[in-house]
């Protein structure tokens, strides 16, 4: 597994850029990851709301939340979610939130 420098720390990532050491995730790491994934940098309040929601959901259930939950729980329009993370909620937002790569066609 390659390593990369995020927020001044050496962190193991997979080739698709998903971090492999979830314990090392922090706000600074997320900002660094967001440089490529997010529509604005630094991330806006809405971005953070989404990222925190994904992370909490993952810690609770062990899987990434479906986009319906992202929209419903945070009162976001579906289009807005894709705008915030142009690669989509799976490849974009989940990466910033420090989740492993979701299974399936992603």
């Amino acid at each position, binding site marked *: 597994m390659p390593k990369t420098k995020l927020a001044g720390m050496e962190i193991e990532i*997979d*080739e*698709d850029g*998903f971090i492999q050491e979830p314990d090392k995730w922090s706000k600074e790491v997320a900002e660094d990851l967001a440089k490529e994934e997010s529509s604005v940098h630094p991330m806006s309040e809405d971005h953070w709301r989404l990222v925190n929601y994904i992370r909490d959901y993952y810690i609770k*259930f*062990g*899987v*990434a939340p*479906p*986009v*319906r*939950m992202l929209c419903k729980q945070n009162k976001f329009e*579906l289009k807005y979610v894709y705008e915030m993370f142009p*690669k*989509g*909620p*799976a*490849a974009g937002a989940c990466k910033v939130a420090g989740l492993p*790569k*979701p*299974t*399936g*066609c*992603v």
Partner: protein
Amino acid sequence: MTKAAPAIRERHQGTREELSNFLLSKLNRNLDVYFQTCQRCGLCADSCHYYRATGDPKMIPAYKIEQVRKLYQRQRKDWRRKASPWIPRGDGLDEEELQELKDVVFGRCTMCRRCTLNCPMGIDTGMIMRAARGMLTLAHKAPKGLQDTVDIHVKTGNNMGMDSEEFVETVKWMEEELQKDTGDPNAKIPIDKKGAKHLWVLNPREVKFFPLLLQAQAKIFHAAGESYTLSSKYWDVTNYALFNGDDKDATTIAGYVLGEADRLGCDTIICTECGHGMRQLKYMAPIWLKRSNFKVRAFVEVVANYIQSGRIRLNPAVNKERVTYHDPCNQARSGNYIEEPRIVLRNSVMDFVDLTPHGRNNFCCGGGGGALTMSEYRKWRIEAAKVKADQIKATGAKIVATSCHNCIDQLTEINRQYKLNVKVVNTCELTADAIVLPRRMFLSTGAPVDVGERGYLKNPALWNHEVAQFLANNERIGELKDQHWQVLDYVRDYNSRHEAWPLPQRIDKDLGVNVRRLFPGSPEVVFKIAGLAEPGDQIKWHAVGVQDS
């Protein structure tokens, strides 16, 4: 609402003996012939996108086949070993060797089967790779991302671990969106509807992350008035065990969907735009499950059928930009769906161009064979995609459409890596945008006139010349001239006398015109413009002989 994290299940790790036995169990006549006939002539080299992009001889299909063949040769328990015990037993399969084999069969081949077409012997590399992949899976050497996808699928019934409740909620949400989009409060996306004609199966990617694709397809079904249903339990078309070579898991997964088709009484399964999902259900499931009493249709095939039979009407003018189509390997090469997507796109967009080469000879996007789930081989995956990037650049297209969720993700990545500046979309999105739904016109007096989904007047009593001209525009006939009016008056008169439709040849004979030339398109067009009531399932023709008057 509690959800348990889908724990990855326990799997048995094969011993050396078992690995050897597995390989031999896969050695059927085809495989044996392939191994014996491969001349290492190298004609396959140029057909492989890995080799074309890198020029590395280790990427040549014949080299990859050779690696598997060598392995097989050593497993042979023939007389020679008994007669000459000094020949090294060499079952091999040590760590290092397995790792090397893994790189070959998982990392350097997407099982796209393009080399099969170029091979003078017709050697199916995909089949050989699958045998070797199966052995590696048994040895717990399959890439983690791929194996996790299979494990979650076997465990939860879909490859993203969504629970049934969440699925139903998402579908309901999209049903609301569909109602908003079409303006029809009765638009439904049926779930668990027994006795529906078709079972529609989805890719979890669209349910979990891109639900608008689900809505786009439902809109097409809605416009066509299709009888279909989703299953709330097993609705996942994918089967990654096709790629990891584990027949047992593959059978289980394919059995999920077929079990639901039985439960709901559907004889036909419509697969969403998923390449391998269609292929595994249509061509592999009958072998795995030893049954063939079901039909499988790809979504593009269904839509092409709607277009040709006039069940949906499209206005390509809404998609003005140049569009090209990427043929998913599993659909074009392994499924023979070559004309269908082109029928769909030529009717959905204004400017359609093909890639060179395309159809059966199309290059793999680079993400096939489950490559997208194997992060460890990303470097090769992106490198090999150069071929596809060049192909797309050459067309000058602004939009790349495809009908496979796996290809979509890989194409999106190519788009970014090679800075193509195109938009990557599913074919169904373009079609759904172009769909012409029932509409309402306003007469010069201000009175509204409604036209039904199939293009018939909702209230035939409102027919007059203004309405007829509007309907003619609707069918792209243009301005109605004297001869048109003559035919329309005749049809209306005939219908009121016989309460049935005259055969077109009857009109031709009686009026001395050519109806099909005056009203091109579907034979129904002339009756729609004449303002006849919408017929039920069966049109009532007045089938009295043409001589009879």
